[in-house]
């Protein structure tokens, strides 16, 4: 009943681990897979190792979290070994790649494709590293170019993860579709900050970062709703999914799967199993036979 197909990927339920949460090692991804995620997206990886920003990198705030981890990763060669461990989880493993140049995306994607990932998600939208966020995800032509180059480099489904820190997210989504994207993920975290009034200074080491969690759900939901009406490729909803009800909202807005990140903090690692069960309960109560039955209901 919960099975979904997303751009050719077979998921046993529509919950997917969002990039940047726990996906830093194979062991961590494996644990999420064993906690019921339908698929997992690894942490964003680039061609060379990166330490990221100084701490605090993750801060809890009301209704969400703020992070500025800063794309830390051990480099794609090293990370490919972690991916191989994650594959033992038996669910599709999606790699996330970032780059400072178009060719960096393609180079990283190629190595991760060889490691056996099921799809590539393009991080076009990191809000806390200069150039990665601003440049690619906010410029339709550049976004198109990244998608096209990565599609040339690998023969896997390619998803573009978009930012809402732009004037018109639909325009970027359409450009990605034109470039050959097989799906889009909406949305990445929203650029934000917090200040400690006793220390009189920003809380995050990087001063600004990305906001996630229940507080961004209404914005993310609106983005999914708008994108789903304008593109033919599937959309993965991402932003504040904590309960089955949240997931159902995204599905009705036109998403075919939902990513969960911050929900791990509030409901624990079993959030994937819990949300999947809650979706199932909803479907059964209302007499629906599968997830597809409710996809896009609110669009009509």
């Amino acid at each position, binding site marked *: 009943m919960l099975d979904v197909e997303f751009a050719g990927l077979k998921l046993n339920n529509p919950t997917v681990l969002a990039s940047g949460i726990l996906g*830093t090692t194979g*062991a961590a991804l494996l644990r999420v897979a064993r906690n019921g995620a339908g698929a997992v997206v690894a942490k964003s990886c680039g061609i060379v*190792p*990166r330490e*990221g920003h*100084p701490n605090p*990198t993750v801060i809890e705030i009301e209704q969400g979290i703020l992070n500025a981890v800063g794309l830390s990763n051990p480099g794609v060669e090293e990370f490919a070994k972690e991916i191989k461990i994650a594959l033992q989880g038996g669910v599709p493993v999606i790699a996330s790649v970032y780059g400072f140049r178009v060719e960096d995306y393609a180079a990283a994607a190629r190595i991760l494709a060889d490691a056996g990932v099921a799809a590539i998600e393009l991080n076009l939208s990191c809000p806390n590293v200069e150039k990665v966020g601003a440049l690619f995800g906010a410029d339709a032509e550049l976004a198109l170019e990244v998608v096209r180059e990565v599609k040339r480099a690998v023969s896997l489904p390619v998803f573009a993860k978009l930012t809402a820190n732009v004037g018109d997210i639909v325009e970027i989504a359409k450009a990605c579709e034109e470039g050959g994207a097989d799906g889009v993920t909406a949305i990445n975290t929203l650029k934000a900050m917090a200040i400690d009034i006793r220390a009189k200074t920003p809380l995050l080491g990087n001063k600004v970062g990305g906001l996630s969690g229940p507080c961004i759900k209404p914005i993310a939901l609106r983005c999914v709703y708008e994108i789903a009406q304008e593109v033919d490729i599937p959309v993965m909803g991402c932003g504040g999914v904590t309960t089955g009800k949240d997931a159902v909202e995204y599905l009705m807005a036109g998403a075919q799967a939902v990513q969960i990140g911050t929900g791990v903090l509030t409901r624990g690692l079993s959030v994937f199993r819990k949300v999947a069960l809650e979706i199932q309960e909803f479907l059964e109560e209302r007499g629906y036979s599968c997830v597809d039955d409710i996809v896009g209901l609110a669009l009509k």
Partner: protein
Amino acid sequence: MHEMQVVKIKKIIKETKRIKTFILDLDVSAIPGQFVMVWLPGVDEKPMSVSYTKGDLGITVLRLGDFTRRLFELSPGDMLGIRGPMGRGFKVYGDKLLLVGGGVGVAPLAPLAEEALAEGKEVTAIIGAITKSELLFVDRIEKAGGRVLISTDDGSAGKKGFTTDVLRELLEEETFDQCFTCGPEIMMAKVLDITREKKIPTQASLHRYFKCGIGICGQCVLDGIGLRVCKEGPTFRDKELRKSPEFGRYWRNAAGQKIYFGGKK
């Protein structure tokens, strides 16, 4: 929710040439083995074991790098950011306890000894350091009524050698219900090997590079077992650690690259 609390340093105690205790104006109770994230605004934030768990919270810190150097420049009245206490502390169920601490690793063991002794349990602590003047909390544990056995690398106090040498000798004579260890990871791995032979259940407190400290970033997940040091740890059972190829061998730096203890692969 673990909100950042910016608090005053009440008191600073110079424990050794390289170790200081910071008593904070923060009245929360912690379980020995738990940690706090310590924030120096504009510098960095690092996890530290709680060394005073009742009343005003305290941390005991070894000066090691840039962050601790900056911390050591602070005076009473200065402010620190604190998140926590967090993580899983030590779990005591036996009556006859053995503690093995190396260097600043004695920090979480001292409050454990005090609490156990106050409950009428029997505590033996093996405390090691490079030299006599770097021994931590020997008086504190003795004052609480515990028995202390000492080792120093240079032989300036107690047995010349390592805590594990003292441990081996002691376990020829005596047995214990439980063992608790904290210190350099190679030492802890040896402690676990020795106590396993003697069938003494052992808990170890691990140190890793932390980012979020709240179980979501994945930075500190142990290979092989998938457990998060900041969430399911920092204290682990011997049977958990034995399943991790990472324990006693390597850790991960901020980039997530494996760094092998002692530089060996």
